[in-house]
C-alpha cells in the first residue's frame, strides 16, 4: 500500500487512503510525468526534430525513442546571448511588476482589513470580482484603453494635455500595466488574509501611547505580515515570469519575455527540442522561488 499509515490505530480513514490514490495518481501522471518527458526531449537532436509542418505527426509516430541524446539544445541556448537576455528581461519584468503589485496591493489590503465587517466584505468582493471575469478579456480591455486612438489618448487630447497620440500600447509599459492589473488580486488576497488575522487595533494603541505611527508600522505590522508578503509576491512573480498572453497582446516587437519566445519556438519554428530546453531552464529558474513559497506556506499553516 502506498499510503501507509505511520500512526496505526486510526483505521477509520482507511477508505480515504484508497480514495486519495486516484487523484494522486492523476496528478503524478498528468503533472509530474510530463516534466520527465520534456527533460528527455530537451536532449533530443534538433536536426531530426525540425520537420516541416505536415510531418509533425509522422515524427511523433516514429517516436522519441529513436532520438539520440545531445546537449546541443542547451549549448545553443547558452551560447546564443539572445536567450540569456530574454531570461533576464523576463525575470526583471516579473520582479518589477511584483513590486508594483505590492506597493499598490499592500495599502489596499491594509485598508480593507481595517474596515468594519460589512464594508470589509463588500470591498473584498470588489477585489475578487475581476478575478472571476475572464483574464483574457480583461487584458484585451487594456488594448482599447491604451491604443493610439484609444480611450486614454482621446481623453488626454480632448483635455488639451497632449497634441498628438502618445504610444502607450505595444510596449513594455503596457505589459507592466497588464501584469499588475491581472495579478493584483493574487497579491491582495494573501496579504489581506494575513493582515486580517492581526490585531491592528493593538498597533493603533501603540501609536496612541506615543509610538510614531510609521515606527509601529515598520517595527510591528510589516514584520508580522511577512508571510502574506512572501505569499502574494510569489503568486505574482512565478506565473508572471512565464507569462505569454499579456506580452502577446500588449507588448511590442521589442518586448522580451520568455513565454512569447517559447510560444514562437514551438508554434512558429516548430523546434520542439529547443522549446523543451527553454522550458526546462525556466522551470529550474523558478524552482527556488517555488520552494521558498512552499516553505512560507507550510510555516503559516503551523501557526
Amino acid at each position, binding site marked *: 500500500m502506498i499510503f501507509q*499509515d505511520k500512526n496505526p490505530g486510526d483505521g477509520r480513514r482507511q477508505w480515504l487512503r484508497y480514495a486519495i490514490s486516484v487523484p494522486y495518481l492523476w496528478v503524478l501522471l498528468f503533472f509530474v510525468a510530463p516534466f520527465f518527458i520534456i527533460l528527455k526531449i530537451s536532449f533530443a537532436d534538433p536536426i531530426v526534430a525540425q520537420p516541416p509542418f505536415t510531418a509533425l505527426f509522422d515524427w511523433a509516430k516514429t517516436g522519441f525513442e529513436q532520438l539520440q541524446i545531445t546537449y546541443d539544445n542547451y549549448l545553443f541556448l547558452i551560447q546564443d546571448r539572445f536567450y540569456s537576455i530574454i531570461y533576464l528581461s523576463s525575470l526583471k519584468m516579473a520582479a518589477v511588476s511584483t513590486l508594483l503589485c505590492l506597493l499598490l496591493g499592500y495599502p489596499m489590503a491594509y485598508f480593507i482589513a481595517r474596515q468594519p465587517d460589512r464594508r470589509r466584505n463588500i470591498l473584498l468582493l470588489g477585489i475578487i470580482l475581476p478575478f472571476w471575469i475572464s483574464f483574457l478579456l480583461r487584458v484585451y480591455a487594456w488594448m482599447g484603453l491604451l491604443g493610439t486612438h484609444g480611450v486614454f489618448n482621446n481623453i488626454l487630447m480632448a483635455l488639451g494635455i497632449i497634441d498628438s497620440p502618445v504610444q502607450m500600447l505595444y510596449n513594455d509599459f503596457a505589459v507592466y500595466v497588464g501584469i499588475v492589473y491581472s495579478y493584483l488580486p493574487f497579491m491582495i488576497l494573501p496579504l489581506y488574509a494575513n493582515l486580517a488575522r492581526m490585531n491592528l487595533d493593538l498597533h493603533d494603541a501603540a501609536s496612541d501611547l506615543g509610538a510614531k505611527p510609521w515606527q509601529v508600522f515598520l517595527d510591528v505590522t510589516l514584520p508580522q505580515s511577512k508571510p502574506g508578503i512572501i505569499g502574494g509576491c510569489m503568486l505574482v512573480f512565478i506565473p508572471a515570469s512565464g507569462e505569454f498572453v499579456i506580452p502577446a497582446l500588449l507588448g511590442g516587437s521589442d518586448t522580451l519575455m520568455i513565454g512569447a519566445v517559447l510560444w514562437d519556438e514551438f508554434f512558429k519554428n516548430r523546434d520542439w527540442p529547443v522549446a523543451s530546453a527553454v522550458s526546462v531552464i525556466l522551470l529550474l529558474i523558478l524552482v527556488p522561488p517555488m520552494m521558498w513559497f512552499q516553505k512560507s506556506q507550510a510555516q503559516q499553516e503551523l501557526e
Partner: protein
Amino acid sequence: MKNRGLLMLGIVTFGYAFLYVPLISVIVYSFNDSRLVTLWGGFSLRWYGVLLEDGEVLAAAWLSLKIATITATVSVIFATLLALGLNRLGRFQGRALLTMIMTGLLVLPEIIFGISVLFLFISMGEWIGWPTTRGATTITIAHITFATGFAAVVIRTRLGALDQSLEEAAMDLGARPLRTFFDITIPAIAPAMIAGWLLAFTLSLDDVVTASFVSGPGSTTLPMLIFSKVRLGVTPDVNALATVIIVLVSVGVVLAAVITRKKPKPDLA
C-alpha cells in the same frame, strides 16, 4: 495623521479605479455603433446581433462550456479528496511530494504546463496507443489537472476552519467513516465545494495557453477564438462578447455573495 489617511484613501481609490475602468470601458464601447472601435458613433446593439449570428463563436462557446462543466465536476471531486487527505490523514508517505505538486499546480506558468502535457499525450499515444488525436478530451484532462490545484486551496481553507470534533463524535457514536463523510463532512464543506466548482469552471472557460497546446483540428475553444481575433487589434464584436461575460459573471458572483452572506465568514474565492 490626517495626511496619512488621505494618502491611503487615494491609493485605495486608485486601486479600485484601476481594477474597474477597463471593464467599464469595454461595456461602454460594446454599444458603440462605429466600426472604428474607439470613435463614438452613437448607441447601437448591432455588435450583439453580429455575435449571435457568428456560428464560429457559438460553436466555440458551446465546446468551452462542455469542457468547463466536466472539468469543474471532476476536479472538485479530486480536490475534495486531496484536501481531505492533506488535512485529515496526518503524515503519510508521499505527503511532502503531494504538497509540492499542489503548489506547483498553482504557480507554474501555464506555458510550461501546456508544452509538457502535450508531449506527455504524444508519448502516451506512442506507448499505449491513446490518445490517438488531440481535442476536447485532451483539453479536458489538462484542465482537470490544473483546476484541481485551485479548487483544493478553496476546500482546504474551509476544512482547516472546520471543527473536527463533529466528525470524531459521529464516528465515536458508531457511524461508519463513509457515512460520517457524507452526513457530516460534505454538508460542512459544501459551500467551499461550490466555490471550488465555480473556480475550476472559470479557469477552464478562460484558458487559452494550455488549450492551444493540447487541442487538435476542429476543437477551437472560445478563448482560443477570442485570442486569435484580438491578437490583431480591438474588434467590436469581442467587446459585445466581453460585456455578456462581464455581466453574467458579476451577477453570479454578487448573487453568490448575497446568498452566502448569512453564513459565517464567506470564503475568499
